[in-house]
């Protein structure tokens, strides 16, 4: 299994722990990552401003992977959505692909027309390409005393019509199964499918924080040990901004927020330090003590 690793902006800027854990886990599971030096922003931030620019930015990243004949592995769900949407458009509209390749060429950005590739989120690669059974065989430390709240986020699931094997967005299961294979208990909770609010963070912090709040209110009142997520944008809301949200509403949550590869890494027996677990904003110390890591 070989993929071009597409880190995106937010992982490089604010999610070093995610990148560390993903690379560690990939190594143990036999997934090879190739780093391309011509990846830039996926275009997501520009979609609402100027669609043509968004399309060109996404397409150019896809062309970069096509030159190497590699499928793309994404870590950020917003990148996943954007690149999947653009890729689908290019695959279904050969004339558009030709047009964008030649427009880029006229402006000195040279990519030849390549064979179509696929864009896949790391969690989907773990679930579909590695598989729960294979992961099961490599588990060295069952995390059976942990109660974990899965946070799917929006773009990993939706819009369903861009994805090849979409899950039911009202009743998804892949992240729950990936959590369960570590031995941890993936809890059911009513705010499970809520949006983190990051999409409006740049426009209104108050609004974004109000959207993130209900998940904290529900999870801080039960026996949840951590929230587990798969998108750096969601992590900015729930981990980086948790203190600010506590302050705004005069509440206390103290809820550790882990990236899924960090949780899986612990179960695979990888050292917590190598998984970047000291870099999570909300302390993971109590959680690590609980599992004896």
């Amino acid at each position, binding site marked *: 299994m070989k993929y071009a690793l597409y880190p995106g902006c*937010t992982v490089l*800027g604010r999610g070093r722990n995610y990148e560390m854990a993903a690379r560690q886990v990939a190594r143990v599971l036999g997934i090879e990552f190739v780093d391309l030096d*011509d990846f830039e922003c996926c275009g997501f931030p520009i979609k609402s401003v100027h669609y043509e620019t968004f399309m*060109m930015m996404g397409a*150019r990243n896809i062309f970069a992977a096509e030159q190497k004949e590699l499928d793309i592995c994404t870590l950020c769900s917003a990148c996943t959505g954007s690149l999947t949407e653009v890729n689908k458009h290019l695959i279904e509209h050969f004339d558009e692909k030709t047009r964008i390749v030649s427009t880029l060429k006229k402006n000195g950005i040279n990519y030849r027309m390549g064979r179509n590739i696929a864009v896949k989120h790391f969690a989907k690669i773990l679930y579909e390409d590695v598989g729960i059974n294979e992961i099961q065989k490599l588990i060295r430390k069952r995390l059976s005393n942990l109660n974990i709240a899965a946070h799917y986020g929006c773009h990993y699931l939706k*819009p369903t019509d861009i994805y090849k094997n979409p899950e039911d967005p009202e009743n998804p299961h892949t992240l729950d199964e990936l959590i369960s294979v570590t031995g941890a208990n993936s809890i059911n909770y009513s705010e499970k499918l809520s949006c983190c609010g990051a999409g409006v963070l740049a426009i209104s912090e108050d609004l974004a924080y109000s959207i993130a709040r209900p998940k904290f209110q529900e999870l801080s009142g039960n026996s949840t040990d951590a929230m587990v997520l798969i998108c750096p944008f969601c992590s900015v809301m729930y981990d980086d901004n948790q203190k600010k949200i506590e302050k705004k509403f005069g509440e206390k949550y103290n809820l550790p927020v882990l990236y899924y590869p960090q949780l899986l890494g612990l179960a695979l027996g990888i050292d917590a330090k190598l998984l970047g677990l000291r870099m999570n904003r909300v302390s993971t110390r109590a959680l690590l003590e609980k599992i004896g890591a």
Partner: protein
Amino acid sequence: MTELSPKFKYEVAQEPGGEGIKLCFACGICTASCPIRAIDEGYNPRRIIRMVLLGMKQRVLSSDFIWFCSSCYACTERCPQGVKFTDVMNAIKNLAVKQGYVPTPFVQQIDILKRFGRLYEIDEFDNKKRAGFGLPKVEKARGFTKKIMEMTELEQIILRKNEK
């Protein structure tokens, strides 16, 4: 403000993603599903669709609330008519930008993307830190994003705001 543009809905429909607007039969499941609406009643998908269909062009394009969509796609998934409201919102916002309405955070993001190719600059200091954590070096962006923005004349489009 009260002047109506009966053709506004066709303008929206012609933008990429905007074509679904004409399918709406006003059931309101978009509004009922919207996490933004649950917090702030100023944002209401069904109302925005009605305003577009009625031709309230200037009021829609100049409003702050069109920028409140979190793009969670809850409305898109649940709509029984396949309106794809998240995409319709992008079409509306693209039209607003062409009229010169661009929120400042987007202007700042575009500036950062032009300079660094990403939303964050990864400099030598970051690369030293990355090396300490066993992560590979991130090369400086090669200016592709900047070039694309020049090709599509994005700056000229967003700078129209200042001409107003």
